[in-house]
């Protein structure tokens, strides 16, 4: 068996953890300590009663590295479940960005027009600026932000990716 020649691919992993102090530090420490990439990481409590949080991680690596990342995550004591959304079939991933654009005249009008195409909403405006809210997959957000660049882009805040499997099954 050889894997060294295999190429890196992007993978989205969902991790269900006990919402206890330090759990996020454990996950992040695992990635930095072992030299894995984090392209995006989001976390929030998803079950208050049982005090469970869900962490969504977008990472990349060869299949052998991805397998290792999952095994290492599973090894953490407060981890309930690790799920490879990329491997386990279709899933939906979404990210939200707030994008601030400062411009007047033609550029200002153009930014509104682009926002409409992307179904971004205006959530704040002054006479010389807009804040757009845009939801979509990471590719869509990149495209939008790239288009805003020449139109007076001054600030971006992104949530990172949240993802869930398609179909009726829970994690």
């Amino acid at each position, binding site marked *: *068996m050889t*894997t060294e020649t295999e190429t890196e691919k992007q993978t989205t992993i969902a991790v269900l953890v006990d919402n206890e102090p330090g759990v996020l530090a454990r996950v992040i*420490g695992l990635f930095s300590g072992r030299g894995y990439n984090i392209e995006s990481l989001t976390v929030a409590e998803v079950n208050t009663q049982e005090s469970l949080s869900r962490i969504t991680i977008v990472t990349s690596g060869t299949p*052998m590295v991805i397998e290792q990342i999952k*095994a290492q995550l599973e090894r953490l004591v*407060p981890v309930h479940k690790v799920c490879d959304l990329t491997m386990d079939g279709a899933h939906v991933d979404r990210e939200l960005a707030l994008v601030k654009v400062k411009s007047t005249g033609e550029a200002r009008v153009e930014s509104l027009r682009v926002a409409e195409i992307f179904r971004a909403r205006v959530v704040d405006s002054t006479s010389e600026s807009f804040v757009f809210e845009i939801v979509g997959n990471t590719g869509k957000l990149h495209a939008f932000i790239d288009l805003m660049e020449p139109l007076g882009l001054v600030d971006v805040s992104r949530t990172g990716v949240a993802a869930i499997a398609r179909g009726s099954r829970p994690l």
Partner: protein
Amino acid sequence: MADDQMNGSQILLKALEEQGVDVIFGYPGGAVLPIYDEIFKQDAIRHILVRHEQGAMHAAEGYARSTGKVGVVLVTSGPGATNTVTGLTDALMDSIPVVCLTGQVPTHLIGNDAFQEADITGITRSCTKHNYLVKDVNKLARTVHEAFYVARSGRPGPVLVDLPKDVMTAMGDYTPVSRVTHRTYKPRMKGDINLIRRAVDIMAAAKRPILYCGGGIINSGPAASQLLTEFVRLTGFPCTLTVMGLGAFPASDPLYLGMLGMHGTYEANLAMHGCDVMVAIGARFDDRITGRLADFSPNSKKIHIDIDPSSINKNVPVDVGIVGDVGHVLEDMIKVWKAEQASPDRKALAEWWKSIDRWRARDCLRYENSTKVIKPQYALQRLYELTKDRDDVYITTEVGQHQMWAAQHYRFEKPNHWMTSGGLGTMGYGLPAAMGVQVAHPKALVIDIAGEASVIMNIQEMSTIAQYRLPVKVFILNNEYMGMVRQWQELLYGGRYAETYMHSLPDFVKLAEAFQAVGLRATKPGEVDDVIREMIETDRAVIADIRVDKLENCFPMIPSGAAHNEMLLGPGDEAEAPVSEEGMVLV
């Protein structure tokens, strides 16, 4: 408040007692005063006062490895806690179950840079299997029970519990262990039977098989060693052990090829290189084993049994990975092997053994003996010969050449009698570890095979040894060098011995006397036997200063970055040492 409430320190001690703890290795300080006050008032649990917290950790490791139980450490906050970091890392690397209890400043001061405050759960997050900060006295008992469960279950390891001082004086309720179950951590013990069948089919078709076995068998318990022995004899396959696995299979068995890896035997390494089926059992494909990965056993099908899924396919991709406890898996494997009446190609196997015997005939552990200077290998052979008939001998080591010579020349028939720092390679491990072993086995013959440089790193523990009258024997192979590092300098850095000569060494005989122990010395080969005999017969602690050849090298050796079939067998091989540039950056 219910009547049966106790304070935190009482709850802690009750939980320890319920966990079957009979000894704690510890060192007091302000933050743990309430706990020490409770220790003073009871006598169910013995406290061994070490001289440095690192010593407590290694003592607990030695205790754990030689008994199969969880070792327990108690230290104060701040510097007491940070002094355990090396020991925790050591226990993590070698999968040793230890629970380390650290004092902490009161909860309301945490985060204030209070006196002797250290964020020890933050500091040790990556060098413990898990850690806890207890903020509520009512969760204390539960947390302690969980800590023991996590430390000993699955792949064992160190667990730290941080105990703020106010929690240890607050009143609260006790939770018995019977009421504690873990929400998430439930390691898999039984292997997948279909994979076991597949593995047996592959093994039954093998022409050149090898069983590569490691510390996981020791972790599993003595029953796993028995099952391994049964399985090896059932199959007639050759068996090799890692440094951590020594004792898992009897060294006297003809099916044993000796240790493998960087300083392993010629026959074990060539068999690993040339096999067509490799079965790794409780071993983790460490880089000391694999050498250059691209050339590691290039033509074999690989089967791997390990309780930790992250060990499988980590360094070396395998064809069949079986997650489970080696004891359980071996039991099933033996059943399947017998049920399927597996009958490997006996003719091919005989051919394979013929090659192995040819490699064996090289007698790779041979060395030039001398009548003038004591060869370190000779001293160890004599130590082995003069102690092998006793069944209560426990060997610990420090780190360096002496450690590898001990692994090569001391032959173990049983598990749990050999403790060494394999993964982290911690100089200063052996003396405190021997102390922990001796506490667990007061009557046994416990010997720390030491290097003069390593032993000084925790020499203060001689004082603990004196206090508790532990008859630990320290057998120093004194070459006046950090020999292992000097060897690399000789082979790879043109003999430029930068900072590896041990200037101004103490007189170890006088040092022994200063610590109320007996000091002995051998400077000539003819004195070795007498010194060993006297050491064994002395019922007190002994430091034996064995003055060995200063420039002896440890062979065989696979230089880092080389493959198994590029092994250096002895001094004659040095000239053509094939160390690549890639190899030079490896350790």
